[in-house]
């Protein structure tokens, strides 16, 4: 258990790391202009800063989780370190994609992020899925929540 001092150091370091992630993606100006700092917050608007995320935002607002879970609750690890690491990595892709418009549409979740997602489903719903051998993280044994609950995040896709 790190002392609170070292903890804040870690966090600061990670913020820097994730910032660098964005810098690596496009350089500071984008990061600033695209309101990069809000990217580190839990506010969904942080995501919707990119109109590209608009669809998911609208979907989420209609979805069953609107009242109970924000983007980060589902899409970033719930433990601090993983959270900012993921954001540093995604921040890189997102800014790069957004700036160079070189990403494929429709946007589809990457396997690494799907795994993060699954972990988050389970961690919130641990009671109800208690009986069904979820094996989060183990691709072979895992029971993919989204296989059946495709629409929980962003409403029905069709």
């Amino acid at each position, binding site marked *: 258990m790190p002392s609170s001092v070292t903890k804040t150091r870690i966090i600061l370091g990670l913020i820097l790391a994730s910032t660098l992630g964005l810098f690596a993606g496009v350089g500071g100006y984008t990061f600033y202009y695209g309101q990069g700092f809000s990217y580190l917050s839990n506010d969904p608007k942080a995501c919707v800063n990119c109109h590209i995320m608009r669809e998911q935002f609208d979907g989420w607002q209609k979805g069953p989780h609107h009242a109970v879970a924000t983007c980060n609750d589902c899409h970033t690890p719930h433990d601090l370190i993983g959270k900012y690491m993921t954001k540093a990595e995604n921040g890189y892709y997102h800014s790069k994609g957004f700036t160079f418009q070189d990403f494929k549409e429709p946007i589809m979740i990457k396997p690494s992020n799907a795994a993060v997602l699954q972990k988050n489903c389970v*961690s919130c719903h641990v009671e*109800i899925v*208690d*009986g*069904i*051998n979820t094996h989060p993280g183990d691709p072979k044994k895992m029971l993919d929540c989204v*296989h059946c609950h495709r629409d929980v995040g962003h409403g029905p896709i069709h």
Partner: protein
Amino acid sequence: FQNIKARKAEATQNAFRVVEVSDKTIDPAVWGKNYPRQYDSYRRTVDIERTKFGGSEAFQHLDDDPVWRHIFAGYAFGTDYREERGHAYMLKDQRETERVTNPKFKQPGACLHCHASTLNAYIDEGLKAGAPAGKENWEAQIQKGFEVVCKMSYSEATKLVEHPVSCIDCHEADTMNLRVNRPGFLNGIRALAKSDQPTPHLPSIERWRKEGRKGEYSPNTEANRQEMRSLVCAQCHVEYYFKGEGKLVTFPWHNGLKVEQIESYYDQVGHKDWKHKESGADVLKAQHPEFELWSQGIHARSGVSCADCHMPYQREGAIKVSNHHVRSPLLNVAQACQTCHRIPEEEIRARVVSIQDRNKALLDRAEEAVVSLISALADAMKRGSTDADLKPARDLQRKAQWRLDFISAENSMGFHAPQESARILAEAIDYARQGQLLVLALKPAAVTASAP
């Protein structure tokens, strides 16, 4: 705190065990003490409820549609063929069907492969017959016992079992993970893996092939969980035949799972189920190819397993469990379909019915064609046509009847793969009518009667 929760979720079986269960525990009631929810739903497979084309009321198909007495003329199925019902009845219904009770049919122990909890019977007989002991020889014991039991007489063999399919037939006792153990299936799926037929719906087979086809493909170690949710069913819901004198239950998947690929295997090994009593053709009997037909459908391709629809999760208070009341999903549309298809229940039913009605109309059309061919052949025989004359037309009856029966014996009335079912029935019609043309071309004038 999150971590504690997480670890809890990973702990595979946290329903804490009140009794010890092992691979030797056959009685489901004992397992039920540890898993009361699954056990309660498992026992409900005694329920009787009918749907438009399926359900669990064991009505007599031969009365429902007497045409089938002609089609099965000279075969056990021509005496008794009922609608199947819940798992709870599998042993009773087999013991009581005229296909077994009527001594003239002399059924072998092979029949039990899919009608009872035979795993331990196989292992015990295997050990008795000298198979090496020890967990590492698990399969050797099963295969050995399987050989022993298959060739026994049914009356002898059935004494070795007392339960319908039980927990142990689908689950590994310590982890409760799914596990397949039926020798007919293990041999069949390996033959399929060895073939070059694409299996987009069984990724683990394609992976095994890509990785150099090392040793034998083994579902229990290679298949992922979603695949296992179908493979446990494929131990029984498949086409099969009894091979040779040993009566070994064999799944004819060596050339692939499609209707014509199975046919080509039977032609290669020169198999026939019986000589048709009215037409003299060497014909085949198809049995419940649910797994094979499902394999050709869009659900399989989309990774939707048998259990997804036939054992959907059910909320039980705070937790959800797999509904072990295995039955028609139409009796349970909310759980079976609506999590994936967010549309009203009536609309889901309407879609299924429109698929099944189309399939039924084609089935009736194909029946009529096959029966017309059978009568045409019968007439020609009466008029003294030789076997040589009739061979080409009889071969067409074999092809046509095989396809018709494949979709008729399959139990979803075309739902598992609607387009594929229609394709198969279209071929059945074509071959049957071509057969009539051949007969008519033989001794024409006399047979116009049998033209439609």
